[in-house]
């Protein structure tokens, strides 16, 4: 393998498309088969190296989305039954999205710094479920309370 091909792909692949990198390398006289093999190898490395590793952030994100959809459905249903004012939806949306997204960003920061693994990760994972359901219910209740007031 020509190390120049690998170095070039690694230095360019964050910013440029594989097609553009390939075209440049071939135009510079490199073997297309060698270029394709390096591109595939580096793409696989990048794919496995991207994203969080511990799964807690992914779990929090799933709970965040599910809670958001459930909360929106609940707010819409309650509103269609005529039990809310116009302010309920924006209060719920701002509260839930702001706090929920903040929790996810906090998790991203905390988990690697405190090296939460094994049993600790399992406990945090379990705790996330009531946290997000509580957040959803809490912001719904708060939105209806403030919205009525």
């Amino acid at each position, binding site marked *: 393998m*020509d190390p*120049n*091909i690998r170095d*070039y792909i690694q*230095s*360019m692949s*964050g*910013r*440029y*498309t*594989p*097609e*553009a990198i390939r075209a*440049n*390398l071939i135009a*510079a*006289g*490199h*073997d297309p088969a060698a270029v394709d093999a390096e591109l*595939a190898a580096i*793409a*696989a490395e*990048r*794919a496995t190296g*991207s*994203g*969080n590793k511990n799964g807690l*952030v*992914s779990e929090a*994100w*799933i709970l965040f*989305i599910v809670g*958001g*959809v459930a909360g*929106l459905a609940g*707010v*819409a249903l309650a*509103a*269609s039954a005529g039990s*809310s*004012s*116009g*302010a*309920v*939806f*924006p209060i719920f949306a701002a509260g839930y999205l702001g706090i929920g*997204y903040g929790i*996810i*960003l906090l998790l*991203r920061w905390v988990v690697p710094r405190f090296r939460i693994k094994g049993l600790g990760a399992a406990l945090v994972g379990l705790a996330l479920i009531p946290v997000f359901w509580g957040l959803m219910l809490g912001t719904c209740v708060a939105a209806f309370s403030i919205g009525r007031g």
Partner: protein
Amino acid sequence: MLPILARFGPITIGTHDFFTMFGLLAGFVLYYHALRRDGLLGGPITLISVAAVVGGAVGARLITSWEVLGDVQSASLPLTYVLTHGPKSIIGGLAGGYLAIVLTKRALGYTLSTGDYYAAAIPLALAIGRVGCFLSELPLGTPTSLPWGMTVSPEAAAAFPRCPGCGGPMHPSMLYEIGFHLGAFTLITTRGPLLPVRGDTLKAYLLAYGVFRFGIEFIRGNEVQWLGLTGPQLVLIPLVAWLVIHFVRQLRSGIYQMPKPIPAIA
């Protein structure tokens, strides 16, 4: 007009909903196929896709919701009414989906640019989705004397509360849009990424669509909201401006002049 595509006993399949779902499905098949080909399919991508759908669905309802806020308030309806019964806009769907993808990637720490994988999927999905609009929504466009102007029956027009121009031939504006999306889809699938920088092919498509849609709105038949512009046009101004600024910055930075590799040793 064909507002209902089929009935199976108590189940009714609406034309618009069917083509929307079919378009989404076709887009996702294309998107996942391209990701799989490049070995990028995985858990984070699935989460990003789910967020994109949710963000798109909410964005589609919210972005032009201000058009009906006055009506909602005067009827003493809650604001959630716009989420369940308000106007839907594909521009809001794209903006909401895009925002959801950016936020999800940031939350998950996903750094790979996947925008170009959507670049062919989105025009395909929109072309299919617009077939549903064409078959079930009125007005088709503003009145026209052009030979391809289309008329609808008075019965079909009566089913819509607002249909200026339904008394004569109208521009088939949805067909113009289908033509645009099919052209973009063909160009992107046959030529690959149009620009060398990751994600810029999608942004170029969105910019082209934004400009095209802004023009199409003049013959779309949508209600004028302010300064002679329709709701979608007013929403498009900041979105198109953001994309123009992005490309001006890219051009100024010289990023499209890609560094050359060391030549192969003969």
